């Protein structure tokens, strides 16, 4: 029996979150150090898993399966493929950097790290799940700690409203998806929640068309799909830094990932039927998100809406239903995850010092916070899709996939317009450039307003490690995509072999 690496990755955070409660609440430093050790350990394991995945064999690896509730065919069933493995790595990276960034939290750090780790366990659990029930179980675990994290440690002005809005949106989506999943379970007649077995089952076309929207949109709410994106920027803004990083960096991917794994891979005919609508909505995400971001005065809102816009690209890539598009979507999920985590880390460091995120009243921070400035600019380049940065590596295949989706899948009435969709998306990326450059210029350059003079301290060593790591990954993926793109491509091919029909 091999080392159960995925179980260890999934369960370490939740065990640590229980262990943290053994500390008296006033031993804050010990609590932080324990959290950091656990996060480092988990991150190390995800790196190890990532590089020991055998790409020649591909398919699902590190598989573990145990009966959970045997009489209903529920099992604890985990394994990773080319799509989910980068997500696991991303989660490991975000929990590690998130703990570093949250060092300064002084209000009940024990509870904070416990809930954060619980959230991390939930996220890991979803990414490695090969069983529908298992996926849903961990999906819910990933959702509700957000409420507490935002409501307790969030930005005082909007935290209660934002936390409740977020929780209700995500919970409504997930329970609707649950009913769809139960319908699949009973209609298939297989008596198992095993996703791989369900993939092989041919549901009737009528069944798929009826249930696909429930399942797909139920999960896509978490990916911030228009018009259900509203919770997302509000939540980003209200959340404390590490939670924003988690939320935008990882949690939104959870929605896209589950929508792909459950919605599209189990109900491919339904996906093909609803595809025009999805493409249309995703396009609105891309364009509308970018335009709204341009108008924002609050730094976090800019990034929040840019997330809405970029997640639209992920959905577009998934909706192409061809290998290029799905590869691009996978890369975009990883790249965008690291990028927003970086953005929010930078904004967090900035806010801790300036105590405002109002763009017009900031300025000239490059002299005081050079690390933050450089990292933010790198993130900005990724966001604009500059060649040499990971954003380009991700967005190019999405556009290629979209372009060819139009020529191949001519049965859809929108097929002739796919080239237009590509062009509109590219223009939206240009809008991204305009608002990112505006933010960089206003916040980091120019003259520092007089009220900040003198009391802006430089970033701490831990902050530097966190943002430098994230920025380095973005450049590394941009310059040398070879360590990830083939992996995701292999995952995309196995997705294609399940949904077929291109």
């Amino acid at each position, binding site marked *: 029996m091999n080392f159960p690496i995925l179980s260890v990755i999934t369960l370490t955070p939740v065990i640590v979150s229980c262990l943290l409660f053994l500390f008296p609440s006033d031993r804050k430093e010990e609590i932080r150090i324990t959290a950091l050790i656990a996060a480092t350990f988990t991150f190390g394991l995800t790196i190890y898993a990532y590089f020991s995945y055998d790409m020649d064999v591909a398919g699902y690896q590190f598989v573990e399966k145990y*009966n*959970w509730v*045997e009489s209903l065919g529920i099992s604890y069933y985990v394994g990773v493929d080319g799509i989910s493995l980068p997500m696991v790595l991303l989660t490991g990276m975000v929990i590690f950097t998130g703990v570093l960034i949250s060092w300064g939290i002084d209000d009940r750090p024990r509870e904070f790290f416990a809930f954060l780790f619980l959230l991390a366990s939930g996220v890991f659990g979803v990414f490695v799940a090969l069983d529908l029930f298992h996926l849903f*179980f961990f999906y819910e*675990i990933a959702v509700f700690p957000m409420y507490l994290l935002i409501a307790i440690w969030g930005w005082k002005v909007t935290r209660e409203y934002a936390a409740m809005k977020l929780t209700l949106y995500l*919970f409504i989506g997930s*329970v609707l998806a649950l009913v769809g999943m*139960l319908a699949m379970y009973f209609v298939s007649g297989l008596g198992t929640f095993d996703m791989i077995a369900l993939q092989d089952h041919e549901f009737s076309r009528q069944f798929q068309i009826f249930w696909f929207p429930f399942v797909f949109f139920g999960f896509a709410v978490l990916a911030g799909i228009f018009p259900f994106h509203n919770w997302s920027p509000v939540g980003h803004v209200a959340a404390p830094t590490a939670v924003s990083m988690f939320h935008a960096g990882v949690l939104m991917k959870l929605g896209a990932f589950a929508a792909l794994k459950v919605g599209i891979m189990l109900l491919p005919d339904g996906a093909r039927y609803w595809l025009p609508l999805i493409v249309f909505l995703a396009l609105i995400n891309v364009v509308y998100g970018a335009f709204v971001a341009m108008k924002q005065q609050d730094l976090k809102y800019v990034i929040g809406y840019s997330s809405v816009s970029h997640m639209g690209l992920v959905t577009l890539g998934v909706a192409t239903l061809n290998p290029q598009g799905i590869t691009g979507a996978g890369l975009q999920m990883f790249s965008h995850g690291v990028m927003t985590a970086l953005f929010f880390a930078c904004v967090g460091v900035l806010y801790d010092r300036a105590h405002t995120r109002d763009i017009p009243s900031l300025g000239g921070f490059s002299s005081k916070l050079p690390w933050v400035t450089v990292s933010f600019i790198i993130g900005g380049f990724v966001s604009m899709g500059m060649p040499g940065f990971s954003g380009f590596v991700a967005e190019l295949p999405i556009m290629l996939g979209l372009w060819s989706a139009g020529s191949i899948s001519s049965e859809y009435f929108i097929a002739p317009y796919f080239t237009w969709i590509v062009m509109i998306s590219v223009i939206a990326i240009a809008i991204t450039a305009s608002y990112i450059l505006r933010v960089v210029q206003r916040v980091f350059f120019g003259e520092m307003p007089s009220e900040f003079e003198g009391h802006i301290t430089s970033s701490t060593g831990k902050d530097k490690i966190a943002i430098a790591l994230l920025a380095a990954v973005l450049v590394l993926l941009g310059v040398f995509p070879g360590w990830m793109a083939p992996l995701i491509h292999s995952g995309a091919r196995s997705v294609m072999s399940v949904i077929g029909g291109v």
Partner: protein
Amino acid sequence: MDISSYQVSSLIAILPEIGLLVLAGTVLIMDTVVRDDRKHLMGVTTALGSVLIIVLALFYARPTGESIWGGMIRDDMLAFVLRLSFIFAGGITAIFSLNYKSVAHRGDYYAIMLGAVIGMCFMASASDLILLYLAVETTGIAGYLLAGYARSNNNSAEAGLKYFLFGAATSGIMLYGFSILYGITGETNFVNIAEVLLSGDVALSAVLGIAMLVLVGIGFKIAIVPFHFWAPDVYEGSPTPVTGFISTASKTAGFAILIRFFIVGFTGSEYWLPIVAVLAVITMTFGNLVALAQTNIKRLLAYSSIAHAGYVLIAFVAYSDLGVASAVFYLITYVVTNLAAFGVVILVSNTVSSDNISEYAGMSRRSPFLGLVMLVSFLSLAGMPPLAGFFAKFYVFAAIVKSDMIWLAFVGVLNAIIGLYYYLVVLKVVYVSPAPDGSRPIEISNISKIVLMILSFGIILIGTASSPWFDWAYQAAIELF
């Protein structure tokens, strides 16, 4: 009854009830002989005795699945599992009662509570109209006394009287239904009644009428709309440990007779199911919507418990082995979870002497432990993993989807969201609102702390290693079909 049929096995089957009776006698004797400063020993004895009975029952009184005592009692898994949960609830309630001044040092209080538990045990196992009615009355009368136990308190007196008036009226209506049923079929045993009804000689209108009359009595016990009016006032006025007891054990006992009477006795005549489905929808929606507006934690839990009865009714409406299994599982988790919630309420009200939700502000700072127990129990009630309530709701929705009533599943999940909202609002007060100035830490006795830890651990255990519990519930269910 034939004397020769007395067998050791028949006695062993009612070992828990015998044990409870002995325990009640012991506590009454202790009340007269124990010195005043050691009166708390009676509560401890009740709790330890309950634990002992559970352990003995697990080892020696496993169900045989047979009808005993001349068909009066059905010794099956359903009865076994539910009886254990009643005794468990009784034991936990005894410990909680130690923290509640007006009942803590009264031997008769514990004895009456054990009497109620005996009644519930027979409700779960009764397979005959006569024993069923006796059991319902035993439970009911003990319950009225418990609710009004704090006589000097007007609210408690009101609660006792209200509970009594509602209970007497509804059980009278139920008895009327029983008498018509006996008049038509000439039988009192559920199995024989089912045979007569299956033969098709009985008019449909009579069957429906009887079902409705009996449903009134059961509806009162399980507090479903429109027989719920007593619940908020009784919950609010009763001594809080009693509230916890009534809202968990008594409700579960009501469901036990609902399941057995309608599934064993009314086999093959499911015309009344749509009516129950409508009641389930109304109950859930009403309970959840009214709970939104509550400012008193006991009333909030009262309305939430009305809503929970609605979820169990959904499982019942599924009318399948999976449905009954999910109902039984739901009840088990509900007992454990709600007891934990009421445990916190009791301990908090000891310090702040009020049950207003606003008094819970900053509780996670005044007592991180109680805050955490509250978090676990409320999120479990809301149906969040990895807690027991998640699996419970999951099984219920699975059962109803399997029975092809998708619309009911949608009503259920949307209701779960309303529930989530008000549970989160309370948790927000506990975790986010600042504590009032000058507030003291909340003191918890060690024994309460241990019990709350056991309950919280149980909630997490059922919510992760769900399989053995579900298998019990499933076994209970397939024996009925």
